[in-house]
């Protein structure tokens, strides 16, 4: 019975493979095959739902083991990672709920996406996502969850890019993708810390081991996973990525940012409940970040003028509350909150296009607190507290400038040292050179005996040059023009280096280097 759990993520995965291959080979490509694609996706996901609910039923009758082991994926000395699934408790509840919501959204999408150019692509990505999400929830170890986590993120990227011919959509999709990498890094860090300190990456083991961890170790692990969760669930200060993700079709907005994927952060924190309980600092952080996000989303949500933005800030606000509840230790409540929110949000996203006609003649009440008259408060809310620009200012721009300088260093110093192939004899690469050659002018190299590039080349050239120079000096005994040029060039270079070194970004780097050496 427990073994059925494998099929829950596997079935949608098979669907994705079939649709994907079908598209590549060409038997699922045009309008006529739309129903086939839709049926494959719908059937596999509904089967997942049936399996999940069956397992949930047997679990409620206490007939399930707590996990199911498929086999070993990786082993090396004392590192071993299994492929195993959770067949018990909240994970199963969530698996059932999410597969149900996915089935509903898939069913709606059949009509909604009809005759769209991206129809097959849409169902391919949604099936893949369905599988990834189940893997994320049901995997018995952190590595499996991470796989699901990553694939789900990738699917989200694909569907923000649904209309990839629109430049704004591609920019936003990339932004979302890159922001989410921060969370991934923290996730990986979390896995490594768990392995180092708790010597396991299995969720159930981690729970039991939690009691033996020191507070410091528990805090380290909890904080890493908490960060990953904050990014995935669009908590402060990462909230702005969620608005950017609203480029795709409405059903995909629903599953990714309303109902399902956005909750993975909260789920991850819930999985690690015992570890968090051991780490008061991490619990405090959950409270603070959750609280700030809730307040932030509320204030920003008030001034949003389009339905999707409003829904997005409502969502992030609710998620903030969930983190807050976790941080305060109301774990059970947070889980209930998660499930209820997923259902409500599915409905509100799917019916977003009818908003205009639903509220026609029943205007939304206007906020009239004292703050509402304050222009600075309004501006801050309208500009979403400039979070995007702040990130740009504090992170992106300095890094870009650094890259800029490095590339300059590459082009002007490294390349010169390494040397580039010299053009073949008697060839030119521009008409200007042709003209020069025709006039017979080799004026530039008048005092150069030979020409080459690269270190070896330069050494040879230098040798030949010096001999030549020596000969020249010996014969002429005068001061050549090149000495003056050289002196001036050296002076300029010294000035440049001084200017460069005094720039703040280099000062920061020097400080960092000094610090790292000191430790």
């Amino acid at each position, binding site marked *: 019975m427990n073994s059925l759990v494998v099929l829950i993520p596997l079935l949608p995965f098979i669907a994705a493979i079939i649709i994907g291959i079908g598209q590549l080979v060409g038997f699922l490509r045009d*309008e006529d095959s739309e129903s086939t694609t839709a049926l494959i996706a719908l059937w596999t996901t509904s089967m997942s739902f049936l399996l999940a609910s069956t397992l949930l039923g047997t679990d409620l009758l206490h007939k399930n083991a707590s996990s199911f082991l498929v086999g070993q994926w990786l082993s090396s000395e004392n590192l071993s990672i299994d492929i195993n699934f959770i067949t018990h408790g909240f994970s199963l509840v969530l698996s059932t709920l999410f597969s149900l919501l996915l089935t509903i959204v898939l069913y*709606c999408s*059949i*009509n*909604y*996406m*009809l*005759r769209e150019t991206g129809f097959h692509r849409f169902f391919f990505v949604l099936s893949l996502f369905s599988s990834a999400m189940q893997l994320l929830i049901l995997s018995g170890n952190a590595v499996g969850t991470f796989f699901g986590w990553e694939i789900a993120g990738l699917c989200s990227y694909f569907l923000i890019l*649904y209309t990839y011919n*629109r430049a*704004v*959509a591609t920019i936003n999709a990339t932004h979302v993708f890159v922001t989410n990498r921060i969370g991934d890094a923290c996730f990986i860090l979390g896995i490594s810390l768990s392995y180092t300190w708790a010597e396991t990456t299995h969720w159930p083991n981690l729970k039991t081991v939690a009691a033996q961890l020191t507070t410091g170790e528990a805090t380290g692990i909890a904080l890493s996973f908490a960060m990953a969760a904050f990014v995935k669930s669009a908590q402060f200060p990462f909230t702005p990525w969620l608005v*950017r993700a609203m480029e795709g*079709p*409405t059903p995909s907005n629903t599953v990714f940012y309303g109902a399902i994927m956005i909750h993975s952060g909260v789920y991850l924190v819930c999985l690690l409940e015992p570890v968090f309980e051991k780490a008061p600092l991490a619990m405090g952080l959950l409270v603070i970040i959750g609280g700030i996000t809730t307040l932030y989303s509320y204030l920003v949500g*008030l*001034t*949003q*003028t*389009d339905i*999707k*933005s409003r829904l*997005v800030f409502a969502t992030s606000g609710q998620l903030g509350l969930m983190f807050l509840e976790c941080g305060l230790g109301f774990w059970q409540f947070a889980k209930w909150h998660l499930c209820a929110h997923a259902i409500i949000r599915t409905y509100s996203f*799917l019916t*977003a*296009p*009818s*908003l*205009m*006609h639903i*509220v026609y003649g029943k205007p*939304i*009440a*206007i*906020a009239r607190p004292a703050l*509402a008259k304050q*222009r600075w408060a*309004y*501006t*801050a*809310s*309208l*500009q979403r507290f*400039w979070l995007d*620009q702040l990130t740009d*200012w504090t992170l992106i721009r300095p890094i870009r400038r650094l890259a*800029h300088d490095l*590339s300059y260093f590459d*082009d002007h110093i490294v390349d010169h040292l390494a040397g580039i192939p010299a053009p*073949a004899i*008697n*060839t*030119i*690469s*521009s*008409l*200007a050179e*042709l*003209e020069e050659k*025709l006039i017979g002018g080799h004026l530039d190299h008048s005092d150069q005996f030979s020409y080459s590039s690269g270190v070896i080349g330069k050494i040879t050239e230098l040798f030949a040059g010096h001999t030549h120079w020596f000969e020249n000096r010996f014969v002429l005994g005068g001061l050549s023009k090149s000495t003056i040029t050289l002196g001036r060039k050296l002076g300029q270079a010294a000035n440049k280096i001084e200017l460069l070194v005094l720039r703040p970004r280099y000062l920061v780097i020097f400080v960092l280097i000094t610090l790292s050496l000191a430790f």
Partner: protein
Amino acid sequence: MNTQASSRGSESRAQIIAELAQLDAVLPRQAPLLQFVHQNTLHGFQHLPFEQALDEFKALTGICAYLPEHQSRIFYQQNRITDDDLDNALARLTDLQPEQAICQLGEKVITRKDLYKIALLFNLDGISISQLNWNTNELNAISTLQPDIPPAIREQLLMEELHQNVLVEQLWKCLLNKLDLQPAVLHPETLWDLTLEQAEEWLETYQALTSAHESLKGIQSSESKVLDDLFSQFGNKTTLRGIMLKLSGIDILDSIRPQLIRICASVLDEGVATWPIPERNELGFYNAWRSLIKYDANPFLHELHDWQQITNELPEDPIDTIILQLTQLEIPKDQWIGYLRRLALELPGWSGLINWRQHHPHYITNKDAVPKLADYLAIRLTLDRLWLNQICMDTWKTPAKVSSLRTYFRKNLAEFTVRRYLYQGDLPEYLTQLAESLAISVDPDRQNRADWQQLADLIWTWQCSPMAEQNTEHSAHKSGWRLFRLCQHLGLTAIKLQAATKADLLAMLNVLDGFNVTERSKIWLYAYEINYRDRLFHTLRANHNRGRWAKREHRSDAQLIFCMDNREESFRRQLEELNPNIETLGTAGFFGIAMNFGTVPAQPQQIFTDSEQANHIAGFLKYMGLTSGFSTFIVLMERDSISQNNPHLTAYQCAACGGQQSGGNAKAFAAMANRNEVRQLLIEQGITIPNDTWFIGAEHNTGSKALTWYDLPEMPSEQLTHFKNLQQTLRHAQQLSAHEQCRKFASVPKNSLSQKTLVPIGERSVDFSQTQPEFGHATNAAALVGRRALTQGAFFDRRLFLISYDPTQDPDGKILEDLLLLAGPVCAGINLEYYFSTVNNERLGCGSKVIHNITGFFGVMEGVCSDLRSGLTQQMIETHEAMRLQLIVEAKTLVLERIYAEQASLRELISGGWLHLSAKDPDSDELFIFEPNKGFVRWQVAHKKVHIYDSSPGYYQNQTLPVAPVLKTSKQRGM
């Protein structure tokens, strides 16, 4: 001195205000979505002839408003456009001189028409060098015949030369010889290492110049001309944003758009946000923004230059701000209005809505700040200046002023060249790489003039080489390839071609050049329209004297008056098929009278006097020619449409009256017409309604297919049984008409003709996952003003607006004049909006529904930060056939000519070719086509047999494409 300056200032203010009002002509005129009205998308160009309007629109916006050629070619393959249609269309454009001969090769005379036909059906464009290489090496283009040569010509060619490879190769060589062309099969990177001999040879061959010096000089001077041209284009052609995009690859709109849209949406918002801008109503759009910008951290975080100064010196009046910013950017004064127009057109949806609000100050919304276009442009210009300054200072250390930029680039022509080519995007890879790394590493502190110069030299060299796609007159991949394909399609071999001179070949090319894509698109459109018109006319002619109710010789079972909407054609036809003794009429009147008198209240007697009521009724009946032969039941059937989760719902509802439902007019009309007092007064006006005639108000919902009846309890009880029968028939007709609609829905089963069919169709309107609840006006193609007898008994596939009118009761054409004034613009508006949304849904329609995001209750965006989308959705136009409306009027041509001469609004539409007028003679089967410069011309096409089918389903069964009009077997009364 001061007064002079201020008078000059107020002069330019007045000028700007006056000219901003002109922008109404080029901006979309779509109202907030809940007030949707169909109208000509190119309304501002309607005073011009159709073709010229499309050309001017393209020149202004770059949008081509003809159906893409590949789509028309598909129609040709489907036999929806025939060779005859193309010939007819070609004959219409006399400038093209289709019969003129170009040259004679042996006994074969090649006329312009031969070339036109081939150019229409096959792609004869030049290709790039790489494409030629691909075609030669991978597709064997030089050894096999082109794959799209029709079989007959292929056979004929192979008869002359058995070996295909010899045949094709000889042709290719012969053409190149005749044109003195060299096949260039080089890779661009060979330029990297160039021998002196090669370089000299190229110069001679391609530039006809002997020295590199001369050639460089030429390029340099042409380059500085390009610079001057670019900087003189400000205004009508481009904005500073456009120039920055061309020279730095940075689009400032990416930074400005989110801020601009946020502020616009907040000001226009009708209730999505719970927190409106403080004091929006008191301050207005511009000043509300001005009061906020002080608190905005954006300029600081983006490290904008002089932002404090720029935001502090903002004047209170938006027009002053516009003048200030334009002056600061140094836009030449004579280009100001052009510049503002460009700016407005960069986000046409938002500018359009703001412009609409400006022109509708009484628009009822809970927020009453009236936004003006000047507010919007003042904000846009200020933001532009802030961000332009940043780019210019960061990259070139000069402020964003036209003169300083021009001076900078005049001094740095090399940099200009490199940047221009780099961001234009057609440099070969090795040059792009160099240029990009130079542009990225550029730092205004570092001197790198020499680097720019060297790179510019490389680019200029590449420009001189045969690898560049330059404007040389002829090359193998352009003229060579075009003629190569043309000759194959003409069935010419190298041997036949021997007789041709170079001049002949050039003449052929010349003809092809003149027959450009716009000309071809026109021909395709004409042919498409002619095809439909002729089929329609054949049917109308064949149906002459077949249709019932030309005269009401016996009493009908019921008379049902429908909306003129093309969707009702199917319902009416099915109803008449079920019971031939039912008469149906179509009216433009429900909304017409509503327009004239306002929406009629539920209790009309409380507002209108008896005689006013009688006048309404009499007018309404006379318009339709229903003044005698009244039946027992007269049903006034309004139309409405309902669907779920559909922001564009109003576009499916009554399209002519701002998305409003007819507002219960039918109910009020029936109540008035049933009153004895009113009927007495009607007798005085010569309309005698029998005592047993009962008027019933009803509503037909084309979305849910439901029929709603009003005030049934008031019906005299003795008529109830008859009425039950009528209801039964109507229900049956509902099913049949739903079934007919099914044939084009991809997701509905087509085979079963039963009660079941009604269910899935009706369900679409309550299904919130349904993006295509019904077809709306899609496939509308003609409007017919005349007696039902003209169309009764024929099948028109829901493509006709049917407006009842009896010419025999209107000898002087007074009624007709009113009807045409009312229905002509409405039908043309619907038809043209569908036309433009179909030919270019991305730019003239609003794209796919699936990514729409409702904004401020007034429109939709794609995602959270896009232009406001106007026009029709992709789902609405999916089945539409983009052609102009055929307006067919049953009247004497003399009457129509008089109306045409007197009514300017109709004349504009008809003479401009925005719709096609024709006349059906009331007494004979003759049809006349109106040609603006000739008047009415008799339609003289030989009689063609029109198929007769037993019933509608028998004809359309298993067809998914539009089907041609046909006749149906005439059923006799009582069958």
